């Protein structure tokens, strides 16, 4: 069999932005019908590379060869015409339009050039959805009424509505439940069977093992390995390539004696209609309690309800014997609760503002006299808090948007440290944080607990909950189905509980 030329060859791709060289001579070769995985930490250049491939960024240097011919991807439309489709992590669908209208957005089947043949669009859309195993999605449904997983399917249908030869999927499984992931993999398999190539980006190594053919690893804008066999390369080697060192998650040591103090936070029969069943929970100073469970098991909802950001249907939250007013974030903050939410950028940070202002925002009354701010005092206090957590760079006036994910999280933690909060609620504390920076964050969290904070954390990464927490509550469909010291559990047991209820 004569070797077919690769479908796509990118070589020497270089792209700089003011102050950063995002890509530095990256090579990528993709064969027809393969699943090519792209691995790398945040900031390694994955996003920039796929944007170049999608025609959204123009490379400063380097060549792109498509089916044996040199080509320039001038615009997203040019890339699409060649048959390159990209499914971004943040789905780019119009919520107010129907499924079919979204699928054919920009290339509607028309009569006389402008009258949209809606019926044709709906028929072909229905066929595409069926091919993707989601015949239950009606082509006339508004996209805004669909679940995240279904919206992703619509995105894929849109890609397939073009004559596509290469699909780029940017962390497609991030928002999906396990059975939805299975369906995703079935789709990927059927695409590759038709000769379509898939460039698959994921953080989850086990997924790459399952469906990947070859792996290219990016680090600091360079391809440090290209075309490794996805199934055979040992995990240790892959992690070593990504981080440039051999890292295993290092969790800080637990204190030897269990905390004896009186509980600082007591949750009694707290529930929310349709989200989670009545929950009882006690949290002592110095203790880290973890909530494990799948997306949709009610984890974030529980934290936000304790915090008063959602109003409880039943039950109470008691801090130091004082019952909090339900549905009042201000009451919770005043009582000493602090939340580091899952969506840091959307829910916690003031992206246009400096580190100092982000840290001091919850404690402004401490630096003000009758509303008048003492900015010197504010700066000193904020700096003390960020130094305590070794936030980098050590520059209080740096805009918070320029910080890495880990340091942004530290800014949120510093906010509560400065406030003098006593109960810290952490929702996915390492979401968007580089693998290399996680260990440091774990150490910070443990240190805060050792200093007397009570911590309640939620994470979808089971090893993280098991490694960091003292005590673990396992959630399934909004109810606690298991509670035990973290040391008595292992990953398999937790997954068993989560997936099958322990049977």
């Amino acid at each position, binding site marked *: 069999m004569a070797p077919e030329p690769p479908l796509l060859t990118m070589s020497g791709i270089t792209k700089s932005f003011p102050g950063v060289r995002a890509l530095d001579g990256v090579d990528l070769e993709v064969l027809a019908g393969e699943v090519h995985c792209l691995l790398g930490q945040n900031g390694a250049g994955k996003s920039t590379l796929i944007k170049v491939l999608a025609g959204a960024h123009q490379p400063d240097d380097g060549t792109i060869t498509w089916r044996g011919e040199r080509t320039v991807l001038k615009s997203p439309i040019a890339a699409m015409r060649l048959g390159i489709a990209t499914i971004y992590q943040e789905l780019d669908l119009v919520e107010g339009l129907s499924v079919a209208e979204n699928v054919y957005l920009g290339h509607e089947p028309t009569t006389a050039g402008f009258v949209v043949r809606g019926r044709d669009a709906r028929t072909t859309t229905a066929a595409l959805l069926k091919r993707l195993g989601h015949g239950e999605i009606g082509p006339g449904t508004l996209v805004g009424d669909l679940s995240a997983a279904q919206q992703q399917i619509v995105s894929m249908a849109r890609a397939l509505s073009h004559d596509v030869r290469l699909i780029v999927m940017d962390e497609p499984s991030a928002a999906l439940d396990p059975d939805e992931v299975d369906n995703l993999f079935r789709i990927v398999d059927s695409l590759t069977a038709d000769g379509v190539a898939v460039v698959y980006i994921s953080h989850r190594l086990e997924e790459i093992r399952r469906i990947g053919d070859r792996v290219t690893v990016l680090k600091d804008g360079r391809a440090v390995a290209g075309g490794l066999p996805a199934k055979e390369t040992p995990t240790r080697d892959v992690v070593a390539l990504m981080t440039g060192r051999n890292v295993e998650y290092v969790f800080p040591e637990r204190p030897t004696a269990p905390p004896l103090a009186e509980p600082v936070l007591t949750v009694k029969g707290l529930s929310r209609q349709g989200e989670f069943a009545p929950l009882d929970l006690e949290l002592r100073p110095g203790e880290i309690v973890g909530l494990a469970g799948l997306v949709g098991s009610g984890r974030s909802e529980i934290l936000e309800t304790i915090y008063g*950001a959602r109003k409880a249907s039943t039950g109470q939250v008691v801090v130091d014997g004082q019952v909090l007013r339900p549905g009042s*974030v201000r009451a919770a903050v005043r009582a000493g609760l602090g939340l580091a939410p899952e969506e840091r950028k959307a829910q916690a940070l*003031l*992206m246009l503002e400096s580190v100092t202002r982000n840290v001091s925002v919850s404690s402004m*009354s401490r630096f003000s006299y009758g509303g*008048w701010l003492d*900015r010197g005092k504010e700066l000193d206090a904020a700096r*003390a808090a960020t130094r305590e957590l070794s936030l980098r760079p050590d520059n209080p006036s740096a805009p918070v948007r320029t910080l890495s994910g880990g340091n942004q999280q530290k800014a949120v933690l510093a906010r509560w440290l400065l406030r003098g909060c006593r109960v810290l609620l952490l929702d996915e504390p390492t979401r968007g944080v580089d693998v290399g920076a996680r260990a440091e964050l774990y150490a910070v969290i443990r240190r805060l607990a050792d200093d007397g904070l009570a911590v309640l954390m939620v994470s979808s990464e089971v090893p993280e909950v098991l490694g960091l927490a003292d005590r673990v509550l396992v959630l399934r469909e909004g109810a606690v189905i298991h509670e035990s010291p973290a040391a008595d559990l292992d990953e398999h047991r937790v997954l068993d509980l989560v997936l099958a209820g322990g049977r």
Partner: protein
Amino acid sequence: MTQPASPARPATPKTTPAGPRPRGFRPDVRTLSLVGVLAALVLIGGITQPDSFLDTNNVQLILTQASVIGVVTVGMTFVIISGGIDLSVGAIVALASVWATTVATQDYGFAGILFTAVVVGVGCGLVNGLLIAYGGMVPFIATLAMLASGRGLALQITDGKTQTVSVDSVLKLGERDAYILGIPPLVLVFAAVTVVGWLVLNRTTFGRRSVAVGGNAEAARLAGIDVRRQRLYLYLLSGLCCGIAAFLLIVLAGSGQNTNGNLYELDAIAAAIIGGTLLTGGRGTITGSVLGVLIFTTITNIFALNNLQSDVQEIAKGAIIVAAVLVQRRTSTTTS
């Protein structure tokens, strides 16, 4: 090959808690460019009408004209920074100015007029604020409703007639005798509102909270800020500014009219926008807005001195708004 023997690194000055504090007033590129535009306008005015433009009387006139809309713009800037909009400012100015100049109010003299203007302004702001913060209405809609009903009420009060002011102490404020060191009292009020506005925005918790609410309302709420109360206060502040502006207008015109403050909402929004305030909230400066007001007022003056019709003025205004926003987009993409 000589390797440079590890050069002694210059001692990098580490900022320490005892080190220099960030300075308050740091003119950025954007502010400087606005100052540049204003300077260019002054130059154009000086060249085209060398005798009349730089005349003291004319400069006093420009600043006086800027005062009324300037005070409104300071309030508007706060509202826009917080992610809102106040379309009712012109209507509030009109309503406050006619309510404060009815025969009954004028009986109470200077204090009665001033008091009524401010109370009507704050009252309208209160209604706006309650509807938006606690009634969950979109600012655009709530203040649009206030615009319509405020104008309607103003017409009802005056029956379309001009209400001449006969209180001497009020009228005197607008006369040359009242000028302090050559500065009209109205301009002093404008300056005072500007300074207070700057201090409130940059030096108080109120200012910080306004910026936080505009930058990310959800984050502000989860950080423990009472977002709804803050929003209420912001519309109260805008109403207060309108009340003050209405009083200035009464002094300036010597009367109250239901047509007062026509299209002030657009002028104030335009001035804030060319001053660099983000229409989506989270960023903006009082300095920029005030420069925006001065730029617009100076253009109007230059056009009037050169006998150009108001249609040409309006076209130029539109062009300036577009140019300013394009320039800002460019500078903001290169700096971030």
